[in-house]
């Protein structure tokens, strides 16, 4: 079985990665780290740069947990859809996501990827806040 973690190069993303690592170690499962971007803007702070990826790899290698890194441009549906697609494809046992404080207006305007994952994931979801 696999644990899917949605990673973004932000505090909540790093917190999710760390929590997912612990959980994978505990359960003896492999880890699937996912980072995607819709790719429709000139810059996307959620899309990991090569430096971010190196950092992630170092962390994962150090832990000794078997892992896969998926870093690509997703389809136009957005981050939540990419996570759910990976969960289904891999038959994951757990999804780990990072969450952050949102204002009601922000949520109304831009929606919430975390909420979509929570409501639609076919497996358990672990939501992690940045420390």
């Amino acid at each position, binding site marked *: 079985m696999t644990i899917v973690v949605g990673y973004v190069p932000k505090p909540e993303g790093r917190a999710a990665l760390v929590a997912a690592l612990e959980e994978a170690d505990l359960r003896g499962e492999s880890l699937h780290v996912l980072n995607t*971007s819709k*790719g*429709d*803007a*000139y*810059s996307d702070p959620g899309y990991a*740069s090569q430096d971010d990826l190196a950092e992630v790899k170092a962390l994962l290698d150090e832990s000794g947990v078997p892992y896969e890194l998926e870093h690509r441009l997703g389809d136009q549906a957005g981050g939540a859809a990419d996570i759910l697609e990976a969960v289904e494809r891999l038959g994951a046992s757990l999804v780990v996501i990072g969450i952050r404080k949102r204002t009601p207006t922000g949520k109304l305007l831009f929606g919430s990827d975390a909420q979509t994952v929570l409501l639609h994931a076919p497996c358990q979801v672990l939501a992690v806040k940045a420390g």
Partner: protein
Amino acid sequence: MGDVGALLAGFETALQPQYLLFAVIGVLLGTAVGVLPGIGPAMTLALLLPLTYSLDPTAAFIMFAGIYYGGMYGGSTTSILLNTPGESASIITALEGNKMAKAGRGAAALATAALGSFVAGTIATVALSLVAPTVAKLAVQLGPPDYVALAVLAFLTVAAMLGSSPARGISSLALGLFISVIGTDSLTGQQRFTLGLPTLGDGIDIVIVAVGFFAVGEALHVASRLRRGPIPLVPITGKWFTKQDFRRSWKPWLRGTVIGFPIGTIPAGGAELGTFLSYATERKLSQHKEQFGHGAIEGVAGPEAANNASAAGVLVPLLTLGLPTGATAAIMLAAFQSYGIQPGPTLFTEQSDLVWALIASLYIGNVLLLVLNLPLVGVWVKVLRLPRPYLYAGILTFAALGVYAVGASVEDLVLLFILGGIGWAMRSFGFPVAPAIVGLILGPIAEEQLRRTLAISQGDPTALVTSPFAAVVYCLVVVAFVGSQWLKRRQARLDAAVFAVAQASTTPGGPTAPVDDSRLASTARASSKEDGQ
């Protein structure tokens, strides 16, 4: 000096809170569109043209000038942090600026670009205030045949210089001239090319053509070439500006100004050429030659100064002779016309308040840009997160709304999208759009003056060339045509050399190398193909 008094009166107008607000809106909007690759000042002015029906001229021109200058500043930010030029005049800045940012000197690169733009913009505006009235005084003495000659000069140079070949430029010009004669002839009342349609009886409004070509056509063109994938943004690091940076920057600033201003005044295809020449000069003169291609501050300071100086230079022929030397200038000319103001030699005497307020607002705009630009750099970077589909959809909606608001007629909208489709096709096949607009605006003026000349000479066509001024201008046409082809070839060579250097210095395995150089080169080609000003 009456001019100094007039300039001070101009400041008095431009500093009124209401106009100051328009200047602030203009520079903010200008910087935002300058930052975004693919959309530039020409498109923004075109989108805002319908506003000219409700805003008073002074407010509109102060805002337009702000957008124009703001675009020049904004382009450098994207060049430096994203390695993708925000607009065509910043292509060169990307070369050294992005290397500086990657080497941890992004802040210094942004600072030298902003300060250089300010220094050059201010010096060039002073030059504009001195040169323009003098040229205008000479220009008042021109007669009808001289106008015809000037129009021919404008037609041919713009057509020859913009676009990927003179043949394409001239066909675009012909299209513009054709659109300009649609409608009822003002002298004889005959219907021309109206197909019997009442909508075409009054001719096609310049605003619709400008919005169709520059906003709809351009947005469709950029959207159809949508590249996917975000580009890594280099974080802004390092000291803002050290004494040593200043020591290395001030000479390139001044040299850039000296190169950029005259290039702006001649129809040489816009500000880009000046930036290329300035870069080449700096590379030749620099004591740090080995740093070129690895982030030399001179390579940012010079070209950034040059593009702002050109922006002011462009206004000299525009305000004194009514000659647009690029796309943005052509749209400004359209704005003058939609107010019923005839740009040309009489502008300085008949509309002196407006002109001097416009010039004063350029000084103010430069200061505003310096004050706003550096502290707000974080905001400008956020503009880049805007999903592109929203942006293009927004442009199309706004264009349609603006045109509908002007005439409240559905025919106008149909016409707008037909013209937009034509504009898109033109851009996609390398036809420049600016000559069409220049033809459209200057066509009727040239036609009227031509007929007047022939009426005065009782049908003798030699009257067109016997006026000494006209003869000189026709000689200039030949010189300019040959010269522009030479300059263009030189620019192409420089282009190739510069990109070769950039390619060589980044290929050894930088993590971002696969995206950025091919992207830089292709975006540069795409955006430089035409719009310049």
